[in-house]
């Protein structure tokens, strides 16, 4: 029998994380959260989450970094903005979910072969290379790196879409691709310079 302590102590907190979340874009008002739970009630995914949005807001502002970044909730969030519409304190919950995702990817808090970060990475690569996304290519690239068997199980659907002219094999590309590269490089530079 594995015994686990279920109550957290003050010492388990990471004050740096708490500071970070309330200073990140969208986090300005997190300390105003009333813990009313309207976000969790309106969230279509909360019933699958280990920590509902309400609990996640509280855990993050108190600095429970491990719990927050390894929570399934940040990956379940579909950015549907239902919570934000209801929040009486106008807390930018959806945006905070994005910020947590970004941080969790940075610090590698996710299971191996987990498709979401892989998809994000491939997406970014395709934008840098072509300026636009060709969905068919993106799906293939993601499944090749995460679950090849899913590619096979989806191939029936892929074929139907192809026949309907909805899965063009041709890659979309913009003309002035150099502009995208210059744009991306400039962002990276400014970010470094201003330490954002």
């Amino acid at each position, binding site marked *: 029998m594995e015994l686990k302590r279920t109550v957290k102590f003050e010492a388990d907190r990471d004050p740096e994380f708490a500071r970070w979340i309330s200073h990140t874009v969208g986090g300005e008002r997190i300390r105003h959260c009333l813990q009313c739970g309207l976000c969790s009630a309106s969230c279509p995914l909360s019933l699958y989450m280990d920590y509902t949005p309400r609990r996640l807001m509280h855990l993050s502002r108190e600095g429970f970094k491990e719990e927050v970044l390894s929570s399934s909730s940040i990956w379940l969030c*579909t950015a549907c903005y*239902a919570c934000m*519409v209801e929040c009486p304190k106008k807390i930018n919950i959806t945006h905070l979910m*994005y910020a947590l995702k970004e941080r969790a990817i940075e610090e590698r808090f996710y299971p191996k072969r987990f498709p979401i970060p892989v998809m994000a990475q491939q997406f970014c690569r395709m934008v840098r290379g072509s300026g*636009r996304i060709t969905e068919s290519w993106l799906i293939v690239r*993601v499944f090749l790196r995460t679950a090849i068997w899913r590619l096979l199980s989806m191939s029936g659907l892929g074929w139907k879409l192809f026949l*309907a002219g*909805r899965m063009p094999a041709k890659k979309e590309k913009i003309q002035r691709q150099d502009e995208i590269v210059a744009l991306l490089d400039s962002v990276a530079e400014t970010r470094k310079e201003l330490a954002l």
Partner: protein
Amino acid sequence: MKYAYYPGCSLRGTGRAYEESLLAVFRSLAIEVQELDDWNCCGATTYLSVDELTSYALAARNLALAERERMDIIAPCAACYLVLNKTQRYIRDYPDIKTVVSRALGAIGLEYHDRVRVRHPLDVFLNDIGLEAIAAKVVRPLKGLKVAPYYGCQIVRPYATFDDQRNPTSMDQLLAACGATVAPYPLKTRCCGGSQKGTLPEIGLHLIRYLIAEAQMNGADVIATVCPLCQFNLECFQKEAGSIRHPLSIPVLYFTQLMALALGASAATIGLQRSLVPVEPVLEAKEIAYA
């Protein structure tokens, strides 16, 4: 007034019928559009989750391109619409983001001065053209066709000012102007799961199932959508979702396909044949011509 049309990536792929029908509606209503010159991917919700600063710069390039032409942007895809709107807000609200974006645009010879409006076709049809003008052009009323209007997230949430965030009605009104009957559809703004079906399939499938089942329960003949991803989810995974409990079968069209049909466009020009759940039997049963 001329608009800059920003199709976004999906309308060139799985959402082709959206583009075809949207352009048909533009033509019928004499709305002048010009495709945004060399537009790029808006970054969608994916980029936002790995690198938000970059996503604003990507979206801003499109804003700046439209501003240079002094035109408002029409963005039919829900994700594009949201990302462009969000980028405008964040550039306004956060000086650091503004700095990053202006420098990045400067590096490619562009500027952005917050002088462009991002519009959704629902907004343009309803507020710039108007219901009466549309109703006057209807040649093939969608009589007897019961439509469940599905808005999903991101069109009205959280930034749209042209409709109510909890109970939007712009599509309802447009469909009614085309002669259709609007089915009660309380889940009209519930999330379809976005790309969840691809990344966390079991959960995505449940979200999809409820949406379709409720439309059927309320007697709808078709579901109308405003977003390529919603349309894809509800249509392409319908069969699979139907294997959970009750079989499901209902065509899922873009609202522009229904509008174009009412305005007299023929099926082949508005991508009806691209549907995986065919709509023709429904139209025939209602005696609505579509050739």
